[in-house]
């Protein structure tokens, strides 16, 4: 059966091709412009940042030899003795690692609890008035923008050396980041249950408790777990300023060139972080599965 393919007239085709090429040209111009801006910014940043690739290439041997030096000397002949030698302070480091985890746990709890209480005040659909909303948002912003180490330094001066300063510093930082996320979660809820609760004459606290929280709880738990993961990393470095955890020993080992100690502590941190990552990922998937079902 003969079939006819409808043909486009040459004149129409020409105009279509011209249109197409115009669009392509415009897109190319845009890409070139973006690239040019990027190039200018890169050169500028490289000048300010004192970038010196030759310095890097001259000293890259330091970098590789550093990794060579921190490698433990493990022989097959006395393997277990070598490992024991490498991890000479295993119990001490293990205790500090547990400290780090607990600092992260308490900080997450503190931050998430505080953020959950304050987020309804910052959410557009719940805030009693614009002034309170603005204030709550600025407080969250302040807490997440000031780096946790700066808080840690101040708290170490105020509360003395130890984990308390680390917990408070990481907790305040988590409060800021989680506050923003919880606020967004609340802004995305279905308002009908809240209206229902309000219709029974509830006040602000009651409508938040019975209308809002049941809807956001699984999101909140998932964000809090994600934050815990990040806080384990932060908990491993606040020790640098004396705020508890394994960071202190790592810092001392790096500064005093106890090479094999560096690799021993780093390996412990890496394994711990990866295990926590995998575990919380599992938990989060379970939580999101539940959220989808209910």
């Amino acid at each position, binding site marked *: 059966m003969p079939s006819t393919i409808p043909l486009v007239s040459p004149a129409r085709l020409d105009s279509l091709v011209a249109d197409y090429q115009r669009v392509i040209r415009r897109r190319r111009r845009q890409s070139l412009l973006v690239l040019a801006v990027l190039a200018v910014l890169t050169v500028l940043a490289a000048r*300010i940042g004192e970038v010196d690739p030759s310095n*890097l290439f001259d000293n890259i041997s*330091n970098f590789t030899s550093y990794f060579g030096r921190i490698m433990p000397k493990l022989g097959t002949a006395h393997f277990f003795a070598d490992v024991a030698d490498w991890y000479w302070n295993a119990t001490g480091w293990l205790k500090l690692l547990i400290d780090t985890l607990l600092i992260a746990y308490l900080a997450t709890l503190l931050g998430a609890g505080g953020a959950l209480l304050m987020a309804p005040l910052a959410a557009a659909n719940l805030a009693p008035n614009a002034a309170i909303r603005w204030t709550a948002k600025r407080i969250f912003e302040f807490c997440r923008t000031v780096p946790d180490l700066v808080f840690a330094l101040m708290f170490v001066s105020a509360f*003395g050396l130890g984990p*308390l300063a680390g917990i408070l510093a990481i907790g305040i930082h988590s409060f800021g980041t989680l506050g923003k996320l919880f606020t967004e979660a609340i802004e995305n809820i279905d308002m009908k249950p809240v209206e229902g609760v309000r219709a029974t004459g509830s006040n602000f606290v009651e409508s938040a408790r019975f209308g809002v929280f049941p809807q956001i709880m699984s999101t909140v738990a998932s964000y809090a777990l994600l934050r815990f993961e990040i806080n384990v990393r932060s908990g491993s470095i606040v020790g640098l300023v004396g705020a508890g955890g394994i960071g202190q020993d790592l810092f001392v080992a790096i500064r005093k060139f106890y090479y094999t100690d560096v690799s021993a502590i*780093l390996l412990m941190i890496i394994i711990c972080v990866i295990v926590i990552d995998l575990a919380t990922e599992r938990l989060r998937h379970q939580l999101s599965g539940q959220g989808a079902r209910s």
Partner: protein
Amino acid sequence: MNPLLGANSEQAAAILDRHRHLFEASARARTRGFVVSFGIAAFTVFSVWWLAIPFNEILRGLTALAKFITLMFPPSSGGHLDLLLKAMGETLAIAFLGTLIATIFAFPLSFLAASNTTLHPLVRFTVRRFFDVIRSIDALIWALVFVGVVGLGPFAGILAIAVSDTGALGKLFSEAIESADEKGRVSVLASGGTDFAAVRFGLLPQILPIIAGQILYFIESNVRSATIIGIVGAGGIGLQLSEQIRTYDFDQVAFAVIMILITVAIIDWISDRLRFAIIGRRAVT
């Protein structure tokens, strides 16, 4: 007595009683809720005990903090405004270049780490573990290492951010590649395109807006992390900030913090605009 129920209150109570299961959570859900909250509380008590939190120190610490805060006003640059501005510029440069270099390394590697574009499952596994390892070491520790390699200064900070973010960005990019729609690639292959063309025309247009958004977000968050990297001497405003806290010059601390807040707000605003422009374009095409 509730006036609405009136004389029929007994009936109403009976109806309520019959449908009690609608109002109350199941026994299983209640036990689970109880176990979870009890577990959290018990673990908190254990943590407080293990870490030996000194509660008697808290009051003293709070008074000290209150004193610090009164010392912060009025904020003052301490006559080092040019120094602070230069340090802030360094911070921005570290965040920008660090993220850029990380992107350059992470982008090609992420294809190897994505299950649909990798060469071999073993390659994927290796690259993923590589990302995991360098990601688990905080940028601050990389900064310590790089200060030893290239000396004090912002260059060490750039390298530190670049290395630690190669892991983070690589993971995110590979997830973006994996979640991309396969149809684009398949249709390019079906029309006789090479593997490279399939990735270039079938995959990249889908993931570029996502990746661009992630890069912007990372520049934003790196401005925040670059403010502290100076504590170990790797450039940026962190050096001044930590010195001022150690010497109790809290008026200058307040000034530096305000500078950081303003800078971060500006960067957030710009990147919000850019992100909107990118996503807007994706919605159009």
